[in-house]
């Protein structure tokens, strides 16, 4: 099966980390349902143009986290994920993206207050666009 995972060679994070974060996101985000058969190590390595060692490392890490499990001879499957883990992941993801934006702001020499104002304005604008009622 094909997984919507993209490697960005411009990013400084190691390949295994990029793949791991995205695959974890697909599982915790619910795009990959419990019981889904994941590609074999070699298959995923070929499609992502990375080595089998990298994919094996990702699968091992996620298996240790309880997100996937390997059945001898049949393959690697998505495990059941608790609601708590899913909720935590949502906030983690948002925090991560916000941190990236803040990093950029600081690099561009914005003051913290400026960034905060920009954040509030952006939040307000986006919520209005979506028809929400955030302040």
């Amino acid at each position, binding site marked *: 099966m094909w997984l919507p995972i993209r490697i960005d*060679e411009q990013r*400084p994070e*190691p*390949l*295994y980390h990029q793949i791991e974060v995205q695959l974890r996101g697909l599982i915790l985000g619910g795009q990959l349902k419990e019981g889904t058969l994941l590609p*074999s*190590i*070699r*298959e995923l*390595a*070929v499609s992502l*143009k*990375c*080595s*089998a*060692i*990298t994919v094996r490392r990702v699968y091992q890490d996620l298996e240790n986290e309880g997100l996937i499990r390997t059945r001898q001879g049949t393959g690697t499957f998505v495990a059941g994920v608790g609601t708590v883990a899913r909720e935590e992941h949502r906030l983690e993801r948002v925090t991560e993206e916000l941190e990236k934006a803040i990093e950029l702001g600081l690099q561009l020499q914005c003051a913290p207050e400026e960034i905060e104002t920009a954040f509030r304005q952006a939040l307000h604008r986006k919520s209005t666009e979506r028809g929400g009622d955030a302040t």
Partner: protein
Amino acid sequence: MTVANMEAAISLRGMKLQHDRFALGPIDCDIPKGMVTAIVGPNGSGKSTLFRALLGLEPVLSGEAEVLGTPLNGNQEDQYKSRIGFLAENPHAHENHLTADEKAKFASRWYPGWDWEKYRKLLRHFDVDGGIRLSKMSKGMRRKAELSIAMAHDPELLMLDEPSSGLDPFAWKTMLQELGRYMEPGDRTLVLATHILEEIKRLADYILFIYRGRVLGLYEKDRLLDDWRTIVVQIEYAQKGGSEMLQRTPGFQGLTEAGPGLYRLEVDEPERGEAYCRDNGFQVLAVQRMDLEDILSCLIRKEEARR
């Protein structure tokens, strides 16, 4: 050079060979089983000689060599070779008069694991007519036919010397698919010599760099591409001893001057290297991943400086 926790398909300990004009080794390395290892090096590095040695066609002068558990000491049985598939860099002229199917028939007698169905499937996938004489085929067509023959007994170890030479982009893609499929069970080992960087990027798990008959290193490919970076630094024009300080950067691999006060620093410990530059007051203008060519030329420069 050993790879942790990994069974070796090929194990070389101080192996040395000697031709009239060319010396190979001493080579120490373990090529891991179940993995794809790309042998990379400039022309004349000894890649083809290494393959010939692994096939028992070159006597090992000193040191030890073991292929699929069989020590190559001059009295090895030929039997281990039936578990190997090999594609030579150049076609053999004495086979010119054979059709692909005739060559396959010879091969089928020699390899116990020969599978006609697999052979036909490969030919179909590569779009080759097995009834044509090898000499009448185009270079790429013959390559595809010979590759099919090399793979049809599902060898434990597949060694390919410049497999993609002469292949058009479509055939090349088919080849990558077939090699991926070959590796799928997880216990097969592929060793290929190639100059095509895209091929290495797509296929290889490990890279063995060789140069002038010596091993420069066996690296895990992704780690190599993750770790090696070029840091572009600006040094105050008047600052004394700047380049000496840069040479002490953690993970230092190479340094070239790119302009007045501008340096390209090559490191394999990117985070510590960058922190060191900043801590010493150098302005870091850019940090970039290096591609394999640059890494190879850096390793070669270091080897040349060592000689």
